[in-house]
């Protein structure tokens, strides 16, 4: 386990037996903790999959019945014909018992096969996800990174200079950023910036990338990529930076009030050392967990923003597939996004353990 910084002391340990024994014991507890959350995570994913699987087959308006109905009316097929056709589409044998279908699906899943899309010519779902995922990852990830960094710095500064004009202006800005929904910001950018004031040509900034430029690592392509990601990222940043700022501010204020900060001043430590080693590190602790959790939700992105800016991310794709009732794809996307959340939650726990020695041992 490389994660646990049980650093070696620079002197030989004086009482090896008891101390090293307890260390070993603690490490074992720690390991079993990881083991436990992993098992929990897998269990959660299994429930997610089972639920979506069940939903698709048993819910009113379920897609299979809808499709059968559709084929019956559109192509004038008998119920049986339509049914067999749909069975082909859905990659399963409708006459097989429910349990058998379920075990088949799960069996494929364990091998990494998410099934095939119904509406897009039987392409594998995993392939489709792989196509749309990077866009979302790029846009939302970039937005998250930028707003987190800005939020940390400005939030800490607000706490440090609290009560000043800077703090008041920033708090007002943060409240507005936090209070206004992201799609409002998106519309404002488009309508006011793009159409009313004509600051930019909207057409040049929406979509994924200029189709005339060849993909690759050439500067033009990268420029085009950044140009098209600019509006979604700006929207994400403006919509989420306020939350980070306010959280960091309150966290920093409560850290500044801690005794150990006063003691650090009394010890004559330099301002820089206090700011980074004492205030910053402790103030950031609660935010790191939040960051890790936010990372988990990056994949599910923001459907509305991607839709407004016609950005080809996973969110917009999910919306389209919902419209087409492509349930295998929906199921696949849910599995992937939920997995991201589960994994990031586990990472958040581990990260917290690394950053805060107090929870490293002994916690539940």
């Amino acid at each position, binding site marked *: 386990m490389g994660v646990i910084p049980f650093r070696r*002391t620079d*002197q030989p*340990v*004086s*009482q090896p037996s008891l*101390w090293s024994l307890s260390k070993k014991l603690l490490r074992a507890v720690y390991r079993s903790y990881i083991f436990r959350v992993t098992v929990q995570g897998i269990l959660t994913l299994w429930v997610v999959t089972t639920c979506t699987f069940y939903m698709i087959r048993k819910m009113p308006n379920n897609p299979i019945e809808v499709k059968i109905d559709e084929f019956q009316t559109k192509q004038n097929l008998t119920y049986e014909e339509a049914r067999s056709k749909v069975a082909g589409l859905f990659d399963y044998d409708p006459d097989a018992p429910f349990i058998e279908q379920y075990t088949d699906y799960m069996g494929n899943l364990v091998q990494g096969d998410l099934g095939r899309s119904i509406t897009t010519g039987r392409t594998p779902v995993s392939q489709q996800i792989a196509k749309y995922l990077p866009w979302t990852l790029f846009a939302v990830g970039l937005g998250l990174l930028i707003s987190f960094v800005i939020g940390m710095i400005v939030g800490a500064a607000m706490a440090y200079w609290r009560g000043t004009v800077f703090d008041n202006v920033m708090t007002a800005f943060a409240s507005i950023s936090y209070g206004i929904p992201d799609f409002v910001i998106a519309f404002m950018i488009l309508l006011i910036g793009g159409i009313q004031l004509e600051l930019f040509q909207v057409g040049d900034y929406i979509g994924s990338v200029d189709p005339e430029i060849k993909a690759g690592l050439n500067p033009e392509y990268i420029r085009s990529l950044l140009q098209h990601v600019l509006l979604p990222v700006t929207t994400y940043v403006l919509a989420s930076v306020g939350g980070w700022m306010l959280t960091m501010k309150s966290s920093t204020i409560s850290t500044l009030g*801690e*005794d*150990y900060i*006063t*003691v*650090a*001043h*009394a*010890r*004559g*430590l*330099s301002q820089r*050392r206090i700011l980074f*080693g*004492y205030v910053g*590190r*402790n103030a950031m*602790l609660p935010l790191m967990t939040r960051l890790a959790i936010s990372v988990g939700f990056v994949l599910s992105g923001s459907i509305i923003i991607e839709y407004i800016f016609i950005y080809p991310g996973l969110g917009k794709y999910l919306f389209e597939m919902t419209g087409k009732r492509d349930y295998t794809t929906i199921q696949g996307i849910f599995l992937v996004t939920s997995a991201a959340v589960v994994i990031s939650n586990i990472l958040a726990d581990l990260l917290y353990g690394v*950053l*805060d*020695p*107090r929870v490293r041992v002994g916690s539940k």
Partner: protein
Amino acid sequence: MAGKEVVLSVQDLSITYLTRRGRLQAVSHASFDLHRGETLALIGESGCGKSTLNFGLMRLLPKNANTDTGKIVYTDQAGQKIDVLALNTRALRKFRWSECAMVFQGAQNSLNPVIHVRDMIYDTAKAHGLNNRGEVRERALELFRKVRLDPERVFNSYPHELSGGMRQRVLIALGLLLNPQVVIFDEPTTALDILTQRSILNVLRDLKEELGFSSIFISHDLAVAAEIADTVATMYAGEIVEMGPVNDIFYEPRHAYTLGLMEASPRLSVGREELDGIPGSPPDLVEPPTGCKFHIRCPFAIETCKTTPPPLEQASMGHIVACYKSSEVLEKGKELRSISSTARVARLS
């Protein structure tokens, strides 16, 4: 005692806080001298300004506090006078801890929870120009041994891995790391159990003897103060109302408030079945009462007390008091002492 060299001299120090309701006079016109090797105990109720005074001595007050008047003069090892209030940021940073250190309540989180004890030691040393880690380490381990800690283990621990008493010792060792002349102890034994308290006090006494630093000891526990102090100062509502040698204060208190504190303290009124508290609570320091600030709660109060604050006057050698009725208080104290000793005799026999 008085003949010794003065290490720290405080003159007419006043500190106010700006609060929402107005100016809060936390310390008013405090003056005292701390001699080399001497321990001065500050006693008084919570909120009487003891801690503010001490934070003021190191200029560690929060931003809304203001030092209105006064002078803090410190004489360093070379005999040079330092005007603490006139120090610039850089010089102040050097002054703190290397000349005057402070030991906080260890049970609270005075230690940064996310870094090792050793890093706190190294940080402190580095801030004062000691970059040789080996030497610093030796010095710290030596101090840990002196405060009766398992040096190696504690050195490499996180604060949360230590008990309250151990943390308190770490803080003491940390305070002595740079060999300061003055150490301020801010209720170092509060919130510790009685056995731990005892061992911390023993450690402190031994260290003082060995290292010879002067100290200011804040406590609301009179028994602890009586044990460790050479001089005792009673504070009430931001003022030093009585100050004198430890035996004078405890055996011949001349201020009604000091007497009240004695009577409210269990271990000093041995034999008496009932403790007498002081009625009422400390005054509002934003709108302090006129005259003597204690007159509302004082059983000895006369008309003058309500209008004119009593001046600090020399009562006997090195014993000053601000009370119009100091002789009555002295008499009353003696009377109470005789009662309690008869009671004790009666119980023993």
